[in-house]
């Protein structure tokens, strides 16, 4: 199923990927729920940023945009919201060089630290995490690379 999904991504992207093997991320859903999802909610899921349905990488949940409009504002995260957020985050882990080089890992950090560029800088031109030692960033990195599993 995961390979099928990957094939779909490759085909639809129109990129000329050399046939070979690709490291499929083993992204633990439970670790995501426990340590990654709260960070994404706090640091990324703003309406004008990744709490926006127009974004591919989107995160929904309590106090933010809800996946189902009938969900009350502060009701706990629904399984669907969690699944949506997990699926989108997991999709961001695919990289030929492995999840440690993926957009999920590189987007939120400065270019000087190996970042991949992030359009949504803060008001002072900084990206989401100014340091790779930021505890929130470490939670994302560890999940992405399997370090917390």
């Amino acid at each position, binding site marked *: 199923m995961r390979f099928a999904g990957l094939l779909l991504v490759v085909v639809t992207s129109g990129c000329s990927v050399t046939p070979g093997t690709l490291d499929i991320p083993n992204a633990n859903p439970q670790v995501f729920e426990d340590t990654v999802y709260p960070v994404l909610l706090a640091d990324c899921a*703003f309406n004008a940023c990744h709490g926006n349905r127009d974004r591919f990488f989107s995160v929904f949940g309590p106090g*933010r*945009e809800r996946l189902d*409009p009938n969900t009350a504002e502060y009701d706990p995260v629904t399984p669907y919201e969690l699944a949506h957020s*997990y*699926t989108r985050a997991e999709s961001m882990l695919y990289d030929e060089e492995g999840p440690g080089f993926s957009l999920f890992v590189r987007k939120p950090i400065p270019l000087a630290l190996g970042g991949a560029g992030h359009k949504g800088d803060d*008001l*002072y031109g900084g990206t989401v995490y100014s340091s790779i030692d930021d505890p929130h960033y470490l939670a994302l990195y560890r999940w992405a690379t399997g370090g917390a599993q």
Partner: protein
Amino acid sequence: MKLAWISAVLLAPASAFAFSDPATFADTAINGGGGGRYFTGSRAEGYSCSACHQGGPSTHFVVDPLPNPLVAGTQYKLVVHWTDPTTPQALQLEISTTTGANPTVSIPAATALPAESRCDGSPTGLPAVYSVDVGTRRIIGVEDCGASRVEVSFVATGDPIEVSIGGVLGNGDGTANGDGVFDDRFRWPPLRQQSATGCSSGGGTSLLVPAVALLLVSRRRRRSGQLDTK
């Protein structure tokens, strides 16, 4: 379970929500809170109200001019007010310095708040102004209950101050979409105007230019012997 996940991906969200209780900013993100973010737009914060609220008409606040220069150890009052108290507006404000050290900041005691700083603009209204300490930062907030003025005292440290203000004019639909936003950050004494970038860029009008203009007009009047009508 797989089917549920696929369904989740296909579902399109259709609504967004806004914080309605000041305490929500401090609550954990998993509970729907800000996770400690107050969206003042300060250097320590990074983001302002416009990270979530967007799409509505710009809303305007007026910041009364401060003396220039600020004398270290002297207490000053920063007054922010807005012209349409009939429309509930929320506001978050933070004063810091360019060196990162925060000046001592305070607001009047609840019993001493003027009517304009109370809900419904009433002398008997509940206090609309509150302060929250986050580490060494002090966040000043105004609830969207009909107040039209906030007065903040600070003691100058000798370093220029940075004032960050984020305000929201809610459209009443309970979501963050369609809300007017005021976003401003200025340094005092002024050096140069900062501009907002990225996803948090606001739709508000900078108050730096009018503040400087007001100060210049005020000085000119003093020099020409006219009454200062500020």
